[in-house]
Structure formats: structure tokens, C-alpha cells
């Protein structure tokens, strides 16, 4: 042990290493999004069934209506967040190599952000008519 290491108090060394009362944040967000997705996915499935075989103008008109547009945006935001949280747990459980794990965790977040941004942009473009 060097002199420098001893300069820090036991409390100082411990801060930031424990849960710091935020350990449950990931778990809670996963459940909160899950509850919201019960309603959103059932609405989405019913809507998609009703749209089977519909020509593009019908689909675009439907996606442009206020309620479907708002629910679709909610589905995308909540769904992709839930996806990122879930895939993160699978990576943390199964990818043992530290570098590979870090790369996978970063890629997971980036992929979720890119997919969400593309879908939200498409929905907004239809809903706002631009």
C-alpha cells in the first residue's frame, strides 16, 4: 500500500462502489416499461391485424391520426427502452470477456438508440405531414 492510497478515508473509498441507493433503478425501469407495454403491445397487435393488406395511403392516414400517432410514439420510446434494458441483462449474464462485454453493452445501447430514432423520425414525418 502506498502513502497515497492511505490518504483516503474508508468512506471515501466506498462511495461510488456500492449501490448508492440506485441499484434498483434498472430493475424498476424494466418493470415500469413492462406494465406500459402490456397496453401498448395489445393495441399494436390489434391495429396491425386491422391493417393487414391495407394499401399505403390507408396505412399513412392511420399513422397520421392523433391517437395512433401518440400511441405509436409511446410504443417506440417505451419498447426500445425495454429492449435495451433486457438485452443488457442477457449480455451481462452470458458475455464473460471484459472487452467483449463492454463492446456488446455499448453496441446494445447504440443500436437501440439508432433504431428508435429512425422509427420515431418516420412516425413524426407521417404525423406532421413533412
Amino acid at each position, binding site marked *: 500500500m502506498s502513502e497515497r492510497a492511505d490518504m483516503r478515508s474508508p468512506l471515501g473509498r466506498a462511495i461510488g462502489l456500492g449501490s448508492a441507493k440506485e441499484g434498483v433503478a434498472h430493475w424498476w425501469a424494466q418493470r415500469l416499461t413492462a406494465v406500459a*407495454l402490456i397496453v401498448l403491445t395489445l393495441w399494436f*397487435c390489434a391495429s396491425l391485424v386491422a391493417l393487414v393488406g391495407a394499401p399505403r395511403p390507408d*396505412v399513412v392516414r392511420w399513422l397520421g391520426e392523433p391517437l395512433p400517432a401518440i400511441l405509436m410514439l409511446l410504443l417506440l420510446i417505451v419498447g426500445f427502452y425495454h429492449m435495451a434494458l433486457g*438485452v443488457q441483462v442477457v449480455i451481462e449474464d452470458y458475455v464473460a470477456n471484459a472487452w467483449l462485454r463492454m463492446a456488446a453493452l455499448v453496441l446494445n445501447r447504440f443500436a437501440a438508440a439508432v433504431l428508435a430514432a*429512425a422509427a420515431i423520425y418516420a412516425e413524426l414525418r*407521417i404525423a406532421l405531414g413533412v
Partner: protein
Amino acid sequence: MSPAERPLSPHLQIYQPQLTSVLSITHRATGLALAAGSIALVWWLVAAASGDHAFAVAQYFWGSWLGLLLLLGWTFSLFFHLCNGIRHLAWDMGLGFELKQVYLTGWTVVAASAGLTVIAWIAGLAMWSHA
């Protein structure tokens, strides 16, 4: 000291598959399948926003046998993940931990996700034949 020299606890290949463990791993597998399926949703929305040609290409693909097979898999994955997810939320509230209840809710999830998949596809194919 090498970690490989220590005795290991029995792992997957030792145990006979049980409903509980099979549903648990299926929850993960369907979750990952849905993550892959989200690309299809993005494609559909972007195609709808882009124009007639892009939408026609997407519609042609989802109407092909490969597209329909993928959609069938994602339909079941979604309903299974939804039903078993509700089961998980009940557990989170401390409900349904008795062995009998675990098996009852487990089989209910299997039946409900299969039933919902069949209902959705009968309704969807009926819509398709009228389109």
C-alpha cells in the same frame, strides 16, 4: 490456483428439462427474438414514410413465405413474452410462488400465448383475404 480445478455445480445438461426452466429460457429467447423483430417494425414505418415503392417492397416481403414465417414467429414471441411477463410481474409482487401455482400459471401462459397467436392469425388472414 486455477479456477478449472475447483468442482463445478451441476449445470444445464445434468437436469431434465422442466416446465419452469423451459419457460424461463423461452422468456429470454423470445425477448431476443423480439429485439431482432424490432428491425421489422422500423423498416415498416420507414417504408410507409418513404413512398409507394419502398412500401410495396416491404409489403411484398412480408407477404412472402419467409416474411410470413418470421411474422408467425414474432407473433408467438410477443404473446409469450407478454403473458409470461405478466407472470413475472405477479412474482415481483410476491404472488404465485407455490409449486402448484407456478405450474398452473406456467401452463396458462403456454395456452394463452398459443391461443392468442391463433386468434391473431385467423383475424389477420381474414383481413388479407378481403383486402
